[in-house]
């Protein structure tokens, strides 16, 4: 079942229209088809549906503290969350303007990503899988803010994995890593 909800899987036209309407309020921040133009707001297009649905639960229950998202998630039923997650998972990610990297920055970033096992959960092209979101085609500012919050222990995650993974990172590494991930080519 989860395979059908992977990025790029098309929905039936009628279902798509209904879900698109349901997602309209979300578009104000996350962009009309889930591609955000606000650097501190994540793009949702092409994220694993399981990841999106769990994040809505974490927002609703206060496990991922966010005063903006909490009341919005609380207003959603299980069925709403399933539908929104599936719709966003099926949208095509459009990368933000690419931040050019020097070869040295690319090498340093890749070394960090390998040393900290980012690819092991997020995929060889950062395409994401299950609980691990797609990191490609996201704003560098968003990536940086999330890693800083994981390091500080203030960005909840489902099972503690990212909070643990961020502990060995100093801020320089966070900046280098976010720049590397943001500077990778389109998915």
């Amino acid at each position, binding site marked *: 079942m*989860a395979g059908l909800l992977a990025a790029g899987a098309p929905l039936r036209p009628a279902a798509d229209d209904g879900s698109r309407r349901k997602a309209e309020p979300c578009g104000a921040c996350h962009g009309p088809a889930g591609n955000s133009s606000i650097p501190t707001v994540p793009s949702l297009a092409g994220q694993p549906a*399981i990841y999106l*649905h*769990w994040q809505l*639960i974490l927002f609703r*229950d*206060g*496990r991922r503290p966010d005063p903006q998202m909490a009341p919005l998630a609380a207003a959603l039923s*299980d069925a709403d*969350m*399933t539908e929104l*997650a599936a719709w966003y998972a099926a949208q095509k990610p459009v990368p933000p303007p690419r931040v050019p990297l020097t070869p040295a920055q690319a090498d340093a970033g890749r070394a*960090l990503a390998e*040393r*900290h*096992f980012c690819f*092991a*959960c997020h995929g060889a092209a950062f395409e994401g899988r*299950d*609980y691990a979101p797609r990191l490609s085609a996201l704003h560098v500012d968003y990536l940086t803010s999330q890693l800083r919050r994981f390091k500080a222990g203030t960005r909840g995650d*489902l*099972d*503690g*994995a990212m*909070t*643990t*993974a961020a502990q*060995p990172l100093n801020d320089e*590494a966070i900046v280098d890593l976010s720049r590397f991930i943001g500077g990778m080519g389109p998915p």
Partner: protein
Amino acid sequence: MSHIVVLIITVLALGATALGLPLAEAQQPPPSWKQGQPAELATSPLSPHAQPPAPKAPGEIPVDKLKVPSGFKVSLWASGLPNARVMTWGDKGTLFVSSRVAGNVYAVLDRGGSREVKTIAKGLNLPNGIAFKNGVLYIAEIHRITKMEGIEDKLDAPPAMTPVYETLPKDAPHGWKYLAFGPDGKLYFNIGAPCNICIPPDTHANISSVNPDGSGFEYFAQGVRNSVGFDWHPVTKELYFATHARDWLGEDVPNDRLDHAPRKGLHFGFPYCHQGDIPDPEFGKGRSCAEFAPPLLKTGPHVAGNGVQFYTGSMFPPEYRNRMFLAQRGSWNRSQKTGFKVMMVTLRPGDVPRYETFAEGWLDGDKFWGRPVYTQQMKDGSLLISDDYVGAIYRVTYQR
């Protein structure tokens, strides 16, 4: 990590800093599911199965695929309980149900023909462990045990959770707990090893106990990698517990375990010795498996035994009296899946227990659709089985 290794690394790191070399060259720990993976398995596609965020609708749960022994019947008893795990009875007929990653605790009321589900707590830190006594529901999360007093009369306006014991280790890996009252009136729980394979701190890899008022913390059994299911024999009152063995040692080794702890103070081998007879390739050096208590039963590699419960009802045939049910949530670290069923263990003094399948059908070839995780007896002697994957509870009845 041993103290000597930490010391050596610290000295080298300080030395490196003095020479202006980057510290960050040291390999960082991988995600916990990958830790201990040897180089030759680095490209393995195996990783833990993601938990569906929403429960399955009753019409989508294929109960007819479940098989039980002749004379038994299995039906869907309750659904709509995301990530349903441990079940424990209140004094007034309420069934409390825990969850793990979903962070919720539920109360289920039996309305005769149907069940009503209430969520009495949410946003908790993997609250797998629940136990009930004298009107009080105790909840064990990763980092603390709390209680809700008088909850059964206040299901729609649950009381605040108040502290019982709050200084437990905070490690997420194997940090979720099973919680149960022992024959001595103490609350027993596991503190799992914070890794797949490592030398755990002295505070970890054990089964411990505490009084319901939070006093009297005590280690009961050591060398237990992670046990999230245990029960005491109805007659001898001795502890029997299931343990999850390490990963990334191979398809067929080591076996998960069922152990018997007739007294406090035994060491069951982790991390030095697995399944009673396999020294760990790294940590077993210089040790002998003979130093440690061997398993009562090797229950199969990677089967993930959770719920352990002795049957004490009178609905099932007499040979089921004092038999143990072992719910196996099923494998992730094996290319051919195993587990995903409820086994039964019949103790035979002086002999290896008899070990047979009770309920199966959650695994269909190479695909699973559900994961049985705990059992609980009803007053009438029927058996409830929770399924944390589809978020439901089944009921098994018997008629001659």
